[in-house]
């Protein structure tokens, strides 16, 4: 009886994870793509360089983070993958989503302050774990992004051109 109940719970969690998790992922990707399009005009570079010929009005540190959790289905898929080894196709999109989301938040908050450019982008990944021994608590990851935002002086009226 107990085994049956356990099996039932397992199957419910598995299908919840599979269906809702998949829907969530599709929605998140749709939102990411949309916002990436909106913010495409704000460049982000990993190098420490900007247009030195233009006067800079302001520079500040921008940070953004996102904590994202894996769903039950993917957790089981990972456990199976651990037996055979190889690429974990179920986890790769998770990290991809989190990284793009963190970058988007960074750009959104920089854009809100009228930044022209983000330089020296750094990304950090850390796993977050809950109470040990509880299987359900592993599988969250934090993506943290930071960069220096730069805002140039507005071009003088009359002497502005293209570039």
């Amino acid at each position: 009886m107990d085994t049956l109940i356990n099996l039932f719970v397992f199957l419910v969690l598995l299908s919840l994870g599979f269906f809702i998790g998949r829907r969530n992922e599709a929605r998140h990707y749709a939102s990411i793509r949309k916002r990436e399009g909106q913010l495409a005009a704000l460049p982000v570079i990993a190098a420490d360089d900007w247009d030195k010929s233009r006067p800079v009005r302001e520079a500040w540190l921008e940070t953004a983070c996102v904590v994202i959790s894996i769903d039950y289905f993917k957790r089981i898929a990972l456990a199976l993958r651990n037996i055979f080894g190889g690429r974990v196709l179920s986890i790769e999109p998770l990290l991809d989503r989190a990284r793009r989301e963190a970058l988007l938040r960074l750009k959104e908050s920089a854009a809100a302050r009228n930044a022209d450019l983000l330089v020296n982008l750094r990304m950090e990944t850390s796993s977050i774990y809950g109470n040990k021994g509880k299987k359900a608590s592993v599988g969250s990851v934090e993506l943290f992004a930071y960069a220096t935002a730069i805002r140039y002086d507005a071009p003088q009226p009359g002497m502005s051109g293209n570039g």
Partner: protein
Amino acid sequence: MILTNIDTVPNMRIVEHYGLVSGSTVRAKHIGRDIMAGLKNIVGGELKGYTELLNDSRKDAINRMVAQAKALGANAIINVRFATSAVAPGAAELYVYGTAVRVESE
């Protein structure tokens, strides 16, 4: 206080170095967030409570670093770096460090 993670402050000249300043904070999450996170672990997605917690903690760490720099007489911190480490189950240390300097506009 100007913070950057590059070697300089654009359009400013560094007139004095005060050395390393840092701030850290160790935060634990509360049980309510843990329960929500447990539910989210089934369907996946963002753990907003944790995102918020880590954001707040980092702000705390930055504030401590800024306070230290202010005490030294600095008006900017350059080359800011962050480090995160999970020190115990359910608790994380957020550490931020940088170089305190005094800058003047060019």
